[in-house]
Every structure is written in structure tokens, then in C-alpha cells.
């Protein structure tokens, strides 16, 4: 490990020793929104044939900075140079002209259009000849190794296919400086690997690539250099090969942080809290999305659930919460208050909730379930307590104090408890959602993707919250995407594959021959014996994803 890490700070000349000029260079860029300084004095550069990571926590100004390159915002001061010449980028059109293409975090696609129609939308290059466009899209796919049917409608696509469309959209316009804003936030590990291979191929093709992320291991595996931002300020740029996770985190957060999840052993008096036996569940099309699921969730442990997106995670949690109709099977809840074994099958979702079984599911769009975007934090608290008021009037005092407590305890960044939830950033929305469920003193806490899109500090806040609950004796069921986290956080990991349990792994035990992560990865795509031919999947895309992943 090299002790001497070269950190270049300040503006720097930008010209490399071998005389190459950067594809794009920012010098002393400053941008303010009213009183708030989003970016202050930021300088960085990217060369052709290079991948630069821009690393920073949520709200550190990464996206603002990239929006200035892509013409959505205009900097207050500072200059942008392309191939050594100063340019003005006033609109997205200007950015196109300088061959800058940005892939936003939120896809801007039209559902009822095909991939190709989306790609050529807004383009004006003479005759409108769809078949010819489709051929060109195919060519780009083949060149960089994308897998995409140009005629496929967007509403039939998986998240990663949609992202592919977005990337091809900018390549189609001839972009050679690509900016990707948190491209992996919504991808499975396999999809992420595939994306990275494509990006590496683009690098070989001489494109300059900027990738915004806060996942450190991605930074380390993909990029050539890393520029770190913290609270709108430029901290420095390091060469990836000369740094490590710990150092980057320190640069990013500005202080030493503990990157370990402290996992305590489950208590000796751990009892079965929730017993699921032979659960079968069908979706609307009559396909079995859950097949013979049996497991026991113990009190005082975190049970992890791993699996490719759409392998039945959602249905499993919803069945327990009483939101999904069961085909057959039993769910028994051992009530700690009475000691009685209660059958959850014939209870309403409300009764199940009152028993202390709580579900917090963070969907891909973060707001879809659980919170109402237009309502403020207090009102969202009341969604769980509106029956508590006496008589005609609602009790607003308790939810208000609960909202204040969550804001303070979890460090939710908001102008106040009365701000509509949709105005909060993604991380803060999730804190509100998880915080509300935890505040109700659950006995079973089910969380799905609670750290989706969160930065490292917020993620650890959530992990610590879960650990706290576990130590209080709560049975925590954690559906996660990041296998590293699952391995470090959970006491047992249940692996789902196409709606079936393909294995239960003890993360404390290292398997022989392969790493634990590889073992789980294999289980995720394993075909369980006795499965019929029809692939299960809650979404149409999931079965296709499963197959692709299996081929990897």
C-alpha cells in the first residue's frame, strides 16, 4: 500500500506531462441558488480515454456541477474549457453541440414509444426514416456490447434496458463526453457489471466519461481518477490506483468514519417470531411468484433476503403484511405479549400492523408506496395514526412531535415538518419512511431496499437503526441489493431465486473454495429442482433478467 497518495488540489494547469489536453476542464466554477452555495470554486478535468469518478455525499453538489456541464444550469463564475478552448454552455442544445451527453438519474423516456423512437426524439437530421434509425441503433449496440431490441416499447423494459436507451440516446447524437449521474443506483449487481464493461469499452474507444456515484467499491473498480466533493467544495483529485476506500471516505466526509457494521450476536433467548410454512402465491396472470416458501424469522436477528430484482421479494413481504392474497401456506406469528401463536392468514392488514408487524418498502421511485408526496411529514406520520384521534377531530399533536423527533434523530434535512415530502431529497424521504415504522415499536420490522440511492453516511444511519431494533429483540427482515452489506449486517441470509428459496446462508461461516459473495450470487441464479418450466416473476422483465444473469 503506497503511503504517498498524490492529491492535486486547486485549479492546476490541466495539461498532462505528455502534452495532452483534457477533453473537458472546469476552472473555479461557482454556483449559488439564492443563499445556498451549491458549488464553490470547483476545478476538475477529464481526458479522452479516461473514466473520472465524481464522489461525494448526497447534497455535496455533484449533480449541480454536472448540470452546468450539460447546460441545465449556468455557472455564476468560472470557466469551462473543451479541448483547451473556453466555451459557453447555455442550454442542453449547446451541450449537444460540444458533444456532451448526460444520462440523468431519473430516466426521461416515453413509455409508449419504442427504444428507437425515444432515441431519435428531438433530433432533426433530415428524413424521418424509422427503419434506418433502427439499423443505426443496432450498430451502436453491437459496437459497445449493449443488449437492446430497438423495437421494444419502453413500458416492457427493465430498468437496465431503460438506462441503455438513455445511454444510446446520447451516443446516437455523437456524444464523446459522457456524464452518468448515479447510473448504478437502480441496477442489480449483474447489471452493474454489464454497464461497467460497456463503459470500459467506451473508454477504449476514446470517450471521456464522468461517473457520479457514492459507492466506493464502484469507484475503485471502474475509474482511473477520482475527484471528491464535500458540501459543495472541491476536496481534491486522486489517482484510483493510489487510494483506497478508507482514504476516499475521509476525503468525502471530511472526518474519519467507521465503515464497519457492528454486528452483535443474536441473544441466547431468541425465539421464533414468525413462522412461514409452504407459502404459495400467484400473480394476476396466474403465474406462481412464490413457491413453497418456508422459513422462520427469529426475534433479535436480522434475516437478510437476497435475490435478483423481481424474484418474489416484494410478494413475500406483502404476503406477511397481509397485502397479498395467498394461494396456500401458513404464516404464524408468535405474539410476545400474549405468548399465543396467531395465524396471520385471516387477519386484515390493519390487524397485522397492530400486532407489531411493520413493513417499509422503498420502491424504485422511492415515493410510490408508504408516503404521500404532496403531504408534509406530519401528515405522513398520521397515515399510520389517523385512527387514534378521539371523536370527530384528528390528533395532530402526537404526529407533530413524532415528526420532530424523526427529523432530529435521523438528521432529516428539511426546511420544516410542514414541507411536502416530495420536496425532500431521496435519502431524507427514506429516513422519514423507515423512521416512521421504527417509531411504532414493531416486533417484526420488514424493510426493503431502505438504502436505495442513499449516500454512505445516511446508509450507515439506517444500518445502525436496524441494528438497534435487532438488539431490542425485534425480528428484522431486510431485503437488500448490496451483497457486501447483506453479508456484514445480517445474521442469516435467505436467497430467493425465481420465487423459491434456493438456500439459507450463514454469513459468519466462510464457505470452502469460493467467497461468500460468489456463493450467494450462485444461489441467486440457481434453478431449484422440481421447478416447472414457467419462470416466475412479478414483473415481466424479471424472468428475462434472471436468464441473462444466469448466462453471465
Amino acid at each position, binding site marked *: 500500500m503506497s503511503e504517498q497518495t498524490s492529491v492535486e488540489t486547486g485549479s492546476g494547469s490541466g495539461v498532462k506531462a505528455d502534452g495532452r489536453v483534457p477533453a473537458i476542464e472546469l476552472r473555479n466554477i461557482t454556483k449559488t441558488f439564492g443563499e445556498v452555495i451549491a458549488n464553490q470554486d470547483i476545478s476538475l478535468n477529464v481526458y479522452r480515454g479516461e473514466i473520472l469518478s465524481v464522489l461525494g455525499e448526497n447534497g455535496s453538489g455533484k449533480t449541480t456541477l454536472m448540470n452546468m456541464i450539460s447546460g441545465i444550469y449556468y455557472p455564476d463564475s468560472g470557466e469551462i474549457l473543451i479541448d483547451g478552448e473556453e466555451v459557453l454552455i447555455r*442550454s*442542453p*442544445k449547446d451541450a*449537444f453541440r460540444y458533444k456532451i451527453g448526460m444520462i*440523468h438519474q431519473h430516466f*426521461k*423516456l*416515453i*413509455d*409508449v*414509444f419504442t427504444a428507437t*423512437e425515444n432515441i*431519435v*426524439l*428531438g*433530433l*432533426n437530421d433530415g428524413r*424521418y426514416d424509422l427503419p434506418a434509425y433502427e439499423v443505426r441503433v443496432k450498430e451502436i449496440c453491437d459496437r459497445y456490447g449493449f443488449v437492446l431490441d430497438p423495437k421494444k*416499447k419502453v*413500458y416492457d423494459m427493465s430498468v437496465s434496458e431503460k438506462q441503455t436507451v438513455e445511454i444510446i440516446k446520447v451516443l446516437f447524437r455523437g456524444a464523446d463526453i459522457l456524464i452518468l449521474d448515479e447510473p448504478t443506483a437502480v441496477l442489480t449487481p449483474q447489471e452493474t457489471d454489464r454497464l461497467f464493461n460497456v463503459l470500459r469499452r467506451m473508454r477504449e474507444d476514446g470517450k471521456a466519461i464522468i461517473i457520479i456515484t457514492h459507492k466506493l467499491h464502484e469507484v475503485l473498480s471502474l475509474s482511473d481518477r477520482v475527484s471528491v466533493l464535500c458540501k459543495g467544495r472541491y476536496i481534491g483529485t486522486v489517482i484510483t490506483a493510489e487510494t483506497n476506500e478508507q482514504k476516499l471516505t475521509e476525503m468525502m466526509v471530511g472526518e474519519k468514519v467507521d465503515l464497519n457494521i457492528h454486528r452483535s450476536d443474536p441473544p441466547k433467548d431468541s425465539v421464533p417470531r414468525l413462522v412461514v410454512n409452504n407459502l404459495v402465491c400467484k400473480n394476476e396472470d396466474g403465474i406462481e411468484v412464490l413457491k413453497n416458501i418456508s422459513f422462520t424469522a427469529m426475534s433479535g436477528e436480522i434475516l437478510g433476503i437476497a435475490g435478483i430484482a423481481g424474484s418474489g421479494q416484494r410478494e413475500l413481504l406483502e404476503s406477511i403484511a397481509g397485502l397479498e392474497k395467498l394461494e396456500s401456506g401458513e404464516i404464524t406469528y408468535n405474539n410476545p405479549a400474549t405468548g399465543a401463536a396467531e395465524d396471520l392468514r385471516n387477519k386484515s392488514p390493519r390487524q397485522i400492523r397492530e400486532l407489531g408487524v411493520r413493513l417499509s418498502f422503498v420502491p424504485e421511485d422511492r415515493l410510490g408506496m408508504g408516503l404521500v408526496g404532496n403531504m408534509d411529514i406530519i401528515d405522513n406520520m398520521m397515515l399510520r395514526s389517523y385512527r387514534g384521534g378521539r371523536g370527530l377531530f384528528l390528533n395532530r399533536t402526537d404526529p407533530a412531535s413524532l415528526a420532530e423527533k424523526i427529523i432530529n434523530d435521523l438528521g432529516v434535512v428539511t426546511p420544516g415538518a410542514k414541507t411536502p415530502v*416530495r*420536496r425532500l431529497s431521496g435519502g431524507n424521504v427514506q429516513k422519514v419512511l423507515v423512521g416512521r415504522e421504527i417509531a411504532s415499536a414493531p416486533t417484526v420490522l420488514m424493510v426493503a431496499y431502505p438504502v436505495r440511492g442513499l449516500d454512505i453516511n445516511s446508509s450507515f444511519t439506517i444500518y445502525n437503526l436496524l441494528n438497534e431494533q435487532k438488539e431490542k429483540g425485534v425480528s428484522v427482515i431486510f431485503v437488500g441489493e448490496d451483497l457486501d452489506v447483506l453479508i456484514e449486517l445480517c445474521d442469516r441470509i435467505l436467497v430467493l431465486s425465481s420465487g423459491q428459496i434456493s438456500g439459507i446462508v450463514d454469513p459468519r461461516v466462510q464457505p470452502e473454495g469460493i467467497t461468500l459473495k460468489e456463493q450467494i450470487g450462485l444461489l441467486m441464479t440457481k434453478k431449484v429442482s422440481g421447478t416447472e418450466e414457467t419462470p416466475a416473476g412479478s414483473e415481466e422483465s424479471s424472468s428475462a433478467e434472471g436468464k441473462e444473469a444466469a448466462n453471465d
Partner: protein
Amino acid sequence: MIFQFIRRAVMQGVPLLYGSTGEIITEKSGHLNLGIPGIMYMGAIGGVIGGFFFEQSGANFDLWYIRVLAVLIALFCSLLASCLMGLLYCFLTVSLRANQNVTGLALTTFGVGAGNFFGGSLIKISHADVPTVTLTKTSSCFSAHLKFVDKLAASADAGKCPKILADICSVLFSYSFLAYFSIVIALVAAHVLMKTRTGLTLRAVGENPATADAAGINVNRYKYIATCLGSMIAGLGGLYYIMDYASGVWSSDGFGDRGWLSVALVIFSLWRPNLAIIGSFLFGGLYIVHNYIPDLSMQAQELFKMSPYVMTLLVLIFVSIKEKKEALPPAHLGQNYFREER
């Protein structure tokens, strides 16, 4: 009689076809313009005003170019009136960000009221005994059709040619130019929407204006142009109704609920102008079929008049069961777009 029924059904359908083609173009831009009945009404009264003053000027309608001029003047006035209505709608919803539903309904009330006001004024100017404006001369120019159909009918009556041939020719070729024009416009609209870059862009604006905006498309311009164009096309429906179907006789509230039928037809035809062609004739037929069934009571007649709406409901139910995304309305229909809003 069946041929006569078809012929009347088509003539009933033409105003609906104009109305729904116009509304489809408008809705594809994301504008739910419920002002269509008012706009069609204004299109009618615009043409009436133009025709009225041209007739009053004492022009000699025996001359062919005067007849052409009469048509052009009425057309121009009609298009102008409905275009102004469309502009008003856009100004309120795009520039002033008013609610689309409220604006549309207000325009319907306004259009009918203003139409009746101008119509009443014309009646007063003409010192007529009856509460109608009659434009026989202008109407005769509008309802001009191919002569050979009449000749054929006459010779069929005289037994010189088969009756069936005359009837078929009558069903196919006996309409005025505005009727054929409505089909041409619907076909052109269908082609432009699905096969051209302009159509792609327009659909994108209605589906997801934020995406269109990010792709460098001027969303507001598309909304303005599509809505005004749609209004002008819809206004032609009103003009056709007065000048051809009603033989140039304008009376207060004479247009009936054809405006709402047009809006229903948009849903019925799943936002596809080419389907609207068939739909309009079907609706037209259903609308008048009670006249062709003997011994119908008053109640039963009203039930028949209701049938187009029932069919629209059935289509709505069927489509929502099928869940086919292409058959759904534009995703952002009825929602205004402001760039700054998250």
C-alpha cells in the same frame, strides 16, 4: 331506404369527425380541451356571420367566382373564430397556467353564449320574422355536389339504369366538398401522428412534456399550434353542420349535443383519427336511427340518442380491461407543464 339512412348517417357523422379529429390533435399535445362544443359553435357562427354580410352586400351569386368567394369568406371567418377560441384556451392554460378542465368547460359555456349573442344580433339586423338566420345562397355553394349523381338518380327513376347503381353512387358521391375534406383531414392527421417526425414530437409532448423539453423540443409552441389547429378543424364541423346539413339555417342552440358527441368519439376511436372516420359514421347512424324505426315512443327515441354514449362507455371499459398502453389517452392529458416544477 337503407341507402338513404347511410347517407344521412354520414352527413350526421361529418361534424363529429371534424370535432374529434380536431380534439385528437389537441389531446395528443396533452391538452384536454373540453371547450370543443363551444369552439364548434363559434366555428359555425363565424361562418354564418361571414356568409350573412356577404349575402347582404348584394353580390351576384350566379357568377362562379362570387360563389367561390362566398365559400372562402365563410371558411375564413369560421376558421378565424375557432382559432381565436383555441388561442384563448392556450393563453389561459399554457401562459396563465389555468386548470384545463375548468378552462375548457368555461369556453364551452362562453362559445355557446357568444354564438347565440351574435346569432341574435344577425336576426335583429335582418328584421326576420322567425328566430333564425337563413343563408340559402351561401348554403347552396357549400352543399354543391357532383351533378352526375342526380342525373343517375333521375335516369334510374325513369327506368334507364339499375336502381342499385344509382343508390350506391348516391351513398358514395353525393356529399359536398366539406364532407370529403373531413375524411382527408382525418387520414392526413393519422399519417402525420404516426409516421412523421412532427407526429412523434407532438405525441412526446402529450405523453411526457418534461422528456420532450429535455430533448430540446419547444413544448409550449407545440401545445399552442396543435390546440389552435385542432380548434380550427373542429370549427369546420360547426360550419359544415350549418351550411350543408342544416341548409344554411341558423337557430339558437341548434347544434345540439354534437360537440360532446365529438369528445366521446375521441375516446371511442382510441385517439386514432382513422378509427374516428368509421366511428363518426357509426355515431351519426346511431344518432338518427330512431327516425328510421317505425312506431317508436318518445322514450325509446331518447334511448337511441343515448346509444353513442353507451358505446363510448363500453369501449372505455373494454380498453381498461385490456390494459393496452397504446389505447390509453396521452399520459399527461389534462396536466399543465411548467419546467420549474419538480
